[in-house]
């Protein structure tokens, strides 16, 4: 019999982290994601799997603890919310530069600045375009349910280790706080061996392992950057994830992820009652963004409405994908406000169909 549990998204991600064989979690409390560390400490993962959980003195310290632990070949994660993720950007750039696998969870809230504790999707640029300094990308996964919060953890680790690259789960305060049924995978064992590049103590059979993002030789550093870019190209080719909902025989589509994608599903029902043939294209990997797939679906559409809890960030990628073939507009709310399904339908009619 399948066993479901009723849980908050934040709790589900924490439970999934234990089950995925995470070696270490380093974090700092911030609303609306504090339940992640609260759940972990309550669960005594040190007894369940030997997993280490440590509350750091700041997000800056958390991300650098993650760097040290990832550099020594362990499966490690942190979680935070928008302002905390901003604080981590330096460390994330170093993780990308040193090519360290790890998982960073952003249960995003509205900004800028201290902003609000209500949900937001205004960290899209920061997550997908680099965030910190230098030419780098995170792999960014956007869950739209509590189940996906759980499922994406082990998926994120697989991608992180496959490409030696940090992976971000970009969620939002609504999914982090909402309770849904969730089914977990079986307990995975913690890794017994570490990758060959990890700093675990130099043995006589090899040269020292060095974890660094520094190279003062410009020619060599350019070669390293080219290597990074080739890795990103490979990820773009092979790791695009998306979902099409009610997309057969449609004239229009919403493009939305996370909480927005959930609301759009209701908007589709309402619009269809009025005879408007609209579906949902949901990017699951925000980076790599499904440019080709959005471009392809645009060939059979009259217009796209990109719906986000922001002033319009992902819409720029949707426009790049569509490349002027059809009309693409953005509709969103900010400051922690969430649009109703009705206002999204209205926006579709006003901005796309009527416009």
């Amino acid at each position, binding site marked *: 019999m399948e066993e479901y549990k009723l849980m908050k998204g934040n709790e589900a991600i924490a439970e999934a982290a234990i089950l995925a064989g995470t070696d270490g979690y380093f974090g700092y409390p911030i609303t609306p994601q504090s339940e992640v560390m609260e759940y972990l400490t309550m669960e005594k993962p040190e007894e369940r799997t030997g997993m280490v959980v440590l509350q750091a003195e700041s997000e800056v310290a958390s991300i650098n*603890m*993650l*760097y*040290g632990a990832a*550099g020594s070949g362990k499966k490690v994660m942190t979680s935070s919310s928008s302002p905390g993720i901003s604080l981590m950007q330096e460390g994330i750039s170093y993780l990308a530069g040193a090519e360290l696998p790890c998982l960073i969870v952003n249960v995003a809230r509205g900004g800028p600045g201290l902003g609000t504790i209500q949900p937001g999707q205004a960290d899209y640029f920061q997550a997908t375009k680099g965030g910190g300094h230098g030419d780098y990308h995170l792999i960014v996964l956007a869950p739209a349910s509590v189940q996906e919060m759980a499922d994406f953890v082990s998926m994120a680790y697989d991608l992180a280790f496959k490409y030696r690259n940090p992976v971000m789960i970009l969620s939002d305060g609504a999914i982090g706080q909402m309770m849904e049924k969730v089914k977990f995978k079986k307990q995975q064992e913690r890794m017994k061996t570490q990758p060959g590049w990890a*700093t675990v*103590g130099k043995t006589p059979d090899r040269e020292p392992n060095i974890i*660094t993002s520094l190279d003062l030789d410009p020619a060599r550093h350019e070669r390293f950057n080219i290597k990074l870019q080739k890795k990103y190209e490979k990820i773009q080719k092979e790791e695009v994830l998306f979902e099409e909902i009610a997309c057969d025989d449609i004239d229009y589509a919403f493009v939305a992820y996370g909480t927005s994608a959930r609301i759009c599903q209701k908007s589709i029902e309402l619009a269809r009652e009025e005879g408007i043939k609209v579906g949902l294209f949901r990017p699951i990997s925000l980076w790599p963004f499904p440019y080709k797939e959005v471009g392809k679906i645009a060939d059979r559409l009259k217009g796209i409405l990109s719906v986000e809890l922001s002033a319009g960030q992902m819409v720029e990628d949707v426009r790049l994908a569509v490349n002027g073939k059809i009309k693409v507009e953005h509709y969103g709310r900010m400051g922690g406000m969430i649009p109703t399904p009705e206002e999204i339908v209205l926006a579709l009619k006003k901005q796309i169909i009527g416009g």
Partner: protein
Amino acid sequence: MADQILNKELIKPENLVYKKTKILNDNVMHYCPGCGHGTAHRLIAEVIEEMDIQSDVIGIAPVGCSVLMYNYFNIDMQEASHGRAPAVATGVKRLWPDKTVFTYQGDGDLAAIGTAETIHACNRGENITIFFINNGIYGMTGGQMAPTTLEGMKSSTTPYGRNIAMMGNPLKITELVAQLPGTCYVTRQAVHTPSSVRKTKKAIRKALEYQKKNIGTSFIEVVSNCNSGWKMPPVQANEWMEENMFPFFQLGDIKVPEED
């Protein structure tokens, strides 16, 4: 004449009494002539060799003059972002509690930008060893004021001398971390004379042995020179250091474990 080696007949393996440790490789260090970093590196490397812990040790390099220290050691190392070495070391040590983990940091890295990470790693009593090289100046960026720059001391951002009213006081962070219950061993040493070198090496050995005992953070400050930043020849810089740095940053043990 200077190229001739005298007493050549003594050069036999059985007469060898001092040779550079194998824990350092043959790369020429980038440090300025007479810089204490080289000596401090060598002492740490010698202790690693003598304790036979090469395969168990992970070092964390800072940002500062010693940012490239991993180019000289035959051990696994990580390069941290500026000031975060104690957090990086925490991440390694928490997941590898049986390994020997150390950070090596300058005064800007440890006592300015990384103050929070330093204090909290020490306060948690992380079982790591922190080597803190204090030369009272930012060496790498060209001799600017450090948190440890003395009152009246000239630097490229205190060209008329450090004015306490305007720029604040020099920070004795070593005395500060000694107050924390998480530290087990806190000492301040130097590396400019044969006797100071011998004392510092003993201190390094103790610190790494305390780490094996899991009794908290061991913390060694080395008061050192910055010939280029201070704009003096090396020998004169060491004299200046004795006259000016040592009265403020007094050498000796500040905290030792109770059992000792």
